[in-house]
């Protein structure tokens, strides 16, 4: 049997039991490799449960910087008897199985095309620790120690990380380092290094390693959000919690008073209600939620659209419909968010690709919502939101000022400027507003979800209603020019084929493009970053005969938006859809696009015949 030999380019998957303390050990493993200058893409695959169910952690070691999921596993760290069979089956031929060899297992439990690496973890821990909890927790560090020998990892880097992690509890530093060396020494005495190796490199640069939810929360702080109302829901909860922490750190006055207000509301409807109330009153406000929350917020989203009230919603998407797969990832709220609420409505969506963009878009969403006086969605997903990603460092220009949009103040009103709350003065469809309490006799208005004239007076007149709805469309056209533009990457050779993708698909897509190019399949690629679509998106489609649309949902929701908004012939947009709840892989994209190309190498020739 030929074992795979790979340096700085392999996939390790940890199979654990939820609640066993494995998460921090696994994260330690990934960060240690980062500290060696080798990029990693790491993903938690976890259940909707606190203790006892299977959980996995997949680490892709990739000096080449392919941070998406590759697909396949080279080394399985099988710590969960419940999932043993499927875990063993998932290993690529020639791969490795690392397991706890304390209790002998029958040969039928193994495969003969993989290499077995047994370490008696339970025996080692039982010999060393008396308390059951210690035996459990340190077992995780012991296997990290053993792996450090097997893969050639840098021990000082791990020790340094442990020292940072337990800075406030020095006793634990020594205990963890002990456990690390126990595992490492056992492996050194009894085993040989694997042909999977980590070697020091210099490929991480100044990049940072952070979860998207945290980054988005930081974006909200920098974007000037002062009011947050939220209701706990996986996978968005950590966004609100991070906002709390950042605000405590950055927005607390010397006297302990807060320059922010956070309310844990009674439900998602109240959350968005608070946001709309605060937005109406001139504060920057947001809520964070997931698909089920978006369903509940529909009525208020329509009010925000029609009464023109700024609001920001971070939607950390999970597997739907209904309760769906609460701890799995999907990009399946696009249509529900884009056209949320009854009547004719549409709402801008921002589509970040990684935590860096979560920060940037998280901040700019507040400028856009004030400028456009409407709800702005920032569409994360569980993969970006809850996993740590290696990404560009955050940047902020101190010269940048927050755009509060069109607001008339006391001087404007006193100076005699005409105020009509829904009057299109500038021709861009965006009216002026006033904050409540601005002026004793000028600029007040009554906000309502009913139809009204440009001066905010109730009206059921058909022509008045139509004029207002047309103005909202003008505003929508203005939005196209303000939202983040798409990013284009052309193929090495001229081609009639293109591909459109967005969000967390990006790293897998980038890798797939390189692989496809190697196979002679050339695709111009466009990463869409927002809805409404900039004209550049429609131009891109017009320039290609066939454009694959790659996304992580069943129904091709981005594709539907493109067809609907651009009046595109659906036949020109073949769908590449991944929606099993795990993040899309480069292998999946390559195989799906290769198959489609094989089936119809010249897309338009059939149509022409």
């Amino acid at each position: 049997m030929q074992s795979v030999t790979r340096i700085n380019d392999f996939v390790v998957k940890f199979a654990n039991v939820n609640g066993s303390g494995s998460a921090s050990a696994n994260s330690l493993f990934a960060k240690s490799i980062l500290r060696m200058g080798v990029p990693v893409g790491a993903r938690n695959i976890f259940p909707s449960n606190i203790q006892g169910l299977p959980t996995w952690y997949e680490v892709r070691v990739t000096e080449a910087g392919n941070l998406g999921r590759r697909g396949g596993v080279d080394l399985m760290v099988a710590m969960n008897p419940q999932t043993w069979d499927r875990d063993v089956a998932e290993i690529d031929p020639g791969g490795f199985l690392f397991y706890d060899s304390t209790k002998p297992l029958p040969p039928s439990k193994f495969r003969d095309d993989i290499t077995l690496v047994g370490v008696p973890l339970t025996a080692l821990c039982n010999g060393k620790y008396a308390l059951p909890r210690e035996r459990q927790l340190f077992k995780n560090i012991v296997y990290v120690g053993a792996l450090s020998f097997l893969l050639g990892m840098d021990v000082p880097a791990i020790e340094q990380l442990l020292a940072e992690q337990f800075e406030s509890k020095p006793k634990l530093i020594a205990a963890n380092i002990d456990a690390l060396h126990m595992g490492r020494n056992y492996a050194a005495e009894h085993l040989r290094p694997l042909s999977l190796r980590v070697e020091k490199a210099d490929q991480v640069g100044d990049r940072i390693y952070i979860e998207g939810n945290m980054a988005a929360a930081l974006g909200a702080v920098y974007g000037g959000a002062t009011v947050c109302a939220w209701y706990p829901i996986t996978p968005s909860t950590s966004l609100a919690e991070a906002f709390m922490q950042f605000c405590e750190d950055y927005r607390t006055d010397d006297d302990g008073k807060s320059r922010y207000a956070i309310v844990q509301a009674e439900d998602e409807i109240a959350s968005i209600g608070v946001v709309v109330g605060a937005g109406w009153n001139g504060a920057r406000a947001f809520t964070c939620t997931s698909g089920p929350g978006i369903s509940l917020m529909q009525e208020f989203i329509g009010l925000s659209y029609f009464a023109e009230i700024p609001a920001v919603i971070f939607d950390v998407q999970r597997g739907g419909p209904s309760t769906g797969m609460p701890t799995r990832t999907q990009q399946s709220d696009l249509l529900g968010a884009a056209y949320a609420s009854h009547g004719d409505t549409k709402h801008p969506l921002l589509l970040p690709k990684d935590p860096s963009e979560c920060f940037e878009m998280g901040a700019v969403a507040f400028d856009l919502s004030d400028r456009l006086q409407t709800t702005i969605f920032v569409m994360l997903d569980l993969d970006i939101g809850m996993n740590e990603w290696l990404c560009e460092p955050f940047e902020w220009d101190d010269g940048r000022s927050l755009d509060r949009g069109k607001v008339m103040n006391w001087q404007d009103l006193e100076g005699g400027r005409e105020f009509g709350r829904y009057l299109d003065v500038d021709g861009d469809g965006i009216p002026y507003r006033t904050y409540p309490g601005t002026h004793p006799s000028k600029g007040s208005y009554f906000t309502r979800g009913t139809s009204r004239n440009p001066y905010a007076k109730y009206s059921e007149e058909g022509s008045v209603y139509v004029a207002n709805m047309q103005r909202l469309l003008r505003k929508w056209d203005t939005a196209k020019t303000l939202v983040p533009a798409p990013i284009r990457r052309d193929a090495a050779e001229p081609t009639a084929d293109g591909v459109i993708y967005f969000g967390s698909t990006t790293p897998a897509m980038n890798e797939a493009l390189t692989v496809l190019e190697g196979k002679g399949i050339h695709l111009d690629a466009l990463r869409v970053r927002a809805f409404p679509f900039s004209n550049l998106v429609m131009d891109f489609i017009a320039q290609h005969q066939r454009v694959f649309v790659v996304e992580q949902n069943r129904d091709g929701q981005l594709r539907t938006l493109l067809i609907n908004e651009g009046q595109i012939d659906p036949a020109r947009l073949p769908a590449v859809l991944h929606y099993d709840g795990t993040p899309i892989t480069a292998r999946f994209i390559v195989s799906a696009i290769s198959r489609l190309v094989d089936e119809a190498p010249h897309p338009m020739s059939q149509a022409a015949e």
Partner: protein
Amino acid sequence: MTYLLKPQLRHPKLAANSLGFTRRDYEGSVSTLCAGCGHDSVSAAVIQACYELELPPHRIAKMSGIGCSSKTPDYMMGNSHGFNTVHGRMPSVLTGANLANRDLIYLGISGDGDSASIGFGQFAHSIRRGVNMTYIVENNGVYGLTKGQFSATSDKGSKSKKGVINHDEGIDLVSMALQLGATFVARSFSGDKAQLIPLIKAALQHRGAAFIDCISPCVQFNNHNGSTKSFDYVREHNEAVNAIDLMVSRDAIHVDYEPGSTTAVTQHDGSVISLHKLARHYDPSDRAAAISFLAARKALGEIVTGLLFVDPAAQDMHDSLGTIDRPLNALTDAELTPGARLLEALNKSLR
């Protein structure tokens, strides 16, 4: 109709308050409610209370949900911003508005459909959060705009205009507000201006969640024999526990009740509520006693009105959250954005 402005003509001798506003300046558009509607009397009482308290009209934010009652903010204080939100959700919108600017005066107007059915949850949570507001429910026990269905405050056994008997237990919003921790709880009757106006004034001066359940008969759909929210029924069964006067700190304290029967309660802002006891042994500072008193009188078929509970030292949501004294919507970029230097330090910690 609701956009109609009232004629600007005014009586030359209309008295102005110290801000220079006449009562007329506190009015709004012409009401589109039915002639004789109790809600219009409540609007008039709110207007009178704001005029007498000399509140700057534009510093009042009028919030409502959906329904007949929720239309009324348009009929008062035409120079105030108003927000007619969505059904049953006024409390959350008011909460958000209050978080954004704690300096305005928040008046929430709702109805029994809006607050006791679809919005029961938001009613409850805004009160337990201690939002600084005056929350008035214009309670007619019926869905007026949709022509006469029972509401959740309709009493068990009461009869609809079409003769249907209500078999469901009625929700008593006042008892609920007491249990939920409201720090000012009152019930009144739209037909009793003398009682209602001082209660609204005291509620507006109260810091914290002030709740007034105002029985406000629906002349179209719930003013018949067999209704327990008709003008006649309420007048016959009304038991007022006290009569109150509200004096703001600048007023000379003047009480003309019998000595010994009057208690003065000083609120946070220095205003003084002077309570004249009508029911012996009723103590509006005892929450638990108020709840059991209400239950006992309800069993007798009486509708207890008056100031039922007040905690003059109440704290509000901003106290609990520890927010700065200035409005959050007035913070500058520099106060909001931590800047590039802190971001670089953060980047460093993430490597």
